[in-house]
């Protein structure tokens, strides 16, 4: 793989003290094994559990050029965390993923390979096709997920099988443009990114991923999220 390209991983964290060292270790391993230039930008939003302290320990172990801590004082949400992290990114490509070990770094070389094959602008992980899948989901969660995805597919016909996933690789300029033009929050934000990307004519490819539900830390699948999802979907349906 080409050595002159650099990859910046954005890791937004909120109460991920247990997960952060593990995900960082996995990331460093994958990048080192494949001989790629990288940096990991940790955007912690003042987690009360001491995630930032964990980050500082990792900074000492792996060095300031590999672990870039860019914390914020309070919980300001995921969307702005990406914007904040991106401002400090020095890579040509940006990889966005969750810090809770749901997204395994072992897929990153596949993302990169896919990106290079077609020189595409975005590569997104998908739980819904091929060898992709989930671990730790009960029937209800699978049903809700499949239904939500089906409705989005029918209404928006996006040409992307996993709209709400948040494990993606972007060309830096592409992500900058997209983040600037997206207005939604939460799951809908990820969805809007894909729909707008299509509108701008960006090319998108996919890599099947296994999504392993978080083992450490709090999880939340509330009724409110389903309502917000439907509202956001209708917003995109009517406006894009």
């Amino acid at each position, binding site marked *: 793989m080409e050595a002159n390209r650099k990859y910046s991983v954005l890791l937004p964290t909120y109460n991920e003290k247990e997960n952060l*060292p*593990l995900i960082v*270790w*996995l990331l460093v391993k994958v990048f080192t094994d494949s001989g790629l230039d990288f940096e990991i930008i940790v955007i912690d939003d003042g987690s009360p559990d001491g995630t930032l302290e964990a980050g500082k*320990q*990792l900074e*000492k*172990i792996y060095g300031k050029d590999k672990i870039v801590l860019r914390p914020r004082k309070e919980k300001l949400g995921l969307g702005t965390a990406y914007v904040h992290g991106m401002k400090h990114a020095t890579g040509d490509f940006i990889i966005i993923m969750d810090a809770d*070990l749901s997204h*395994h770094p072992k897929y990153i070389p596949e993302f990169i390979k896919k990106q290079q094959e077609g020189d595409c602008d975005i590569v997104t992980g998908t739980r*819904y096709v091929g*060898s*992709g*899948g*989930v*671990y*730790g*989901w009960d*029937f209800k969660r*699978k*049903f809700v997920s*499949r*239904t939500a995805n*089906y409705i989005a597919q*029918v*209404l*928006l*016909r996006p040409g992307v099988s996993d709209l709400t996933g948040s494990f993606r690789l972007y060309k830096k300029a592409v992500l900058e443009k997209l983040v600037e033009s997206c207005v939604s929050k939460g799951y809908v934000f990820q969805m809007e990114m894909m729909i707008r990307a299509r509108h701008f004519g960006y090319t998108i490819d996919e890599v099947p991923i*296994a*999504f*392993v539900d978080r083992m450490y830390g709090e999880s939340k699948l509330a009724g409110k999220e389903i309502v917000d999802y439907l509202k956001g979907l209708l917003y*995109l*349906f*009517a*406006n*894009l």
Partner: protein
Amino acid sequence: MTKLMQWLAAVGLFMSIWLAIVLDMISLNIPDSKKEILHALPVYILIVFACYSLALIGYRVATFNDCVEESRELKEEIQEAKKELTEKGYKFD
């Protein structure tokens, strides 16, 4: 054109053709015995679409991969990570 407008255009086009046939503005010489089917056509289509959707979602739920192997591997890697990080001086608490 938004997705909503595309949908409205497609549904509107279909409904106007259907209406034109039902009101005999376009004469297709459909025998009276078949007219009933014609009149209920939009409802039939809705029902078929709903059944198709439910069947597809059901199929996809049933065939949703359970990534047991990946989860097991991850657990092993976590043990390895903890060991190596501790060696490097990381303090878990």
